[in-house]
């Protein structure tokens, strides 16, 4: 039971979501489904990032207005790691950008061939 803490659990969830995402990316023929799989993959990674910053029993990295906390360096001992949180913010936005772009592609590809089957778009090969 040593590993049954929040960090490990969410890390495992993250990895499993990533695997499901990969599975979806590699097996689904429908482009929209592939994009869905990608968002799941992305969510998995984000969970991964956050859980790596998690420390059991610590609070969010926001300093109380109380000055003593500042003075006594208690902050160090009372908050979770803020860095992964900062990173994951960026990652989420990037993921959104990529998803939006993929969806734009999906729409245009559908317009071009009236299908969403990814293996129909193999004009370029070999």
């Amino acid at each position, binding site marked *: 039971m040593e590993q049954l803490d929040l*960090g490990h659990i969410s890390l495992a969830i993250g990895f499993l979501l990533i695997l499901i995402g990969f599975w979806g990316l590699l097996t689904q023929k429908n482009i929209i489904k592939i994009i869905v799989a990608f968002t799941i993959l992305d969510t998995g990674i984000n969970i991964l990032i956050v859980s790596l910053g998690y420390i059991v029993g610590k609070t969010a990295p926001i*300093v109380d207005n109380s000055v003593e906390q500042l003075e006594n360096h208690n902050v160090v001992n009372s908050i979770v790691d*803020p860095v992964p949180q900062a990173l994951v913010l960026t990652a989420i936005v990037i993921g959104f950008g990529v998803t939006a772009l993929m969806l734009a592609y999906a729409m245009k590809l559908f317009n071009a061939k009236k299908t969403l089957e990814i293996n129909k778009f193999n004009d370029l090969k070999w």
Partner: protein
Amino acid sequence: MLKNTLIALVIAVLAYMFYNVYNTYETRTSLSGVAEYYATNAAKEVGAANIVTSIVVTYRGFDTLGEVTILFLTASIISFFLKLKEEDENKSIKHGITSELLITASQVLVPIIFLFGIYVFINGHLTPGGGFQGGAIIATGVALMIMANPNIRINNHVIHWVESISGVAFVIVGLFGIVLAGGFLDNRISGLGEFGTLFSAGAIPIIYSFIGLKVGAEISNILNKYQKSQKEL
């Protein structure tokens, strides 16, 4: 089916690899490395109560600039990718009118949502949330507007102006950092102010506001483009 078996095998090996990665994880009990430094000094140096914000806007402000750029890029690409021909825009198909309720609700809600969004990014250095969250909230408001009335013509100019000016301002504030403080995107171009108040943490509220506006505008722009593409045949 053979192919799926193969893929299952691949995923299994991938899982094995990730398992090895997973095994490097050990439960953390304390902060280390740069996090420790941030926890100790961020509040003092940057003056923001929300350490995440101080990292996002100042310490790793350059990343944030990149992030804004990504949204900007996506919006730009989508806008030339999904571009409608001029004539289409004029004789676009009318969507059916959505229910009265939604329209009324949106009329009430949208200003509140906008205000909330602005609140979120202005207080980014104090409370959870900030430019991105605020921007996203504003965009949600825009989305609601569009949903309520699909025929609404979001004024492109406004979006573009907001987007451009906030973006340029972001860069310029960043450049001020070089001149007035320690480097590009340094927030200490003005006094840090009193810790924990709205007007504190140097330029963070300003920068985060610009970020919020820009993100809001960019996402709205993306949504708008998608919305317009609905009219396309």
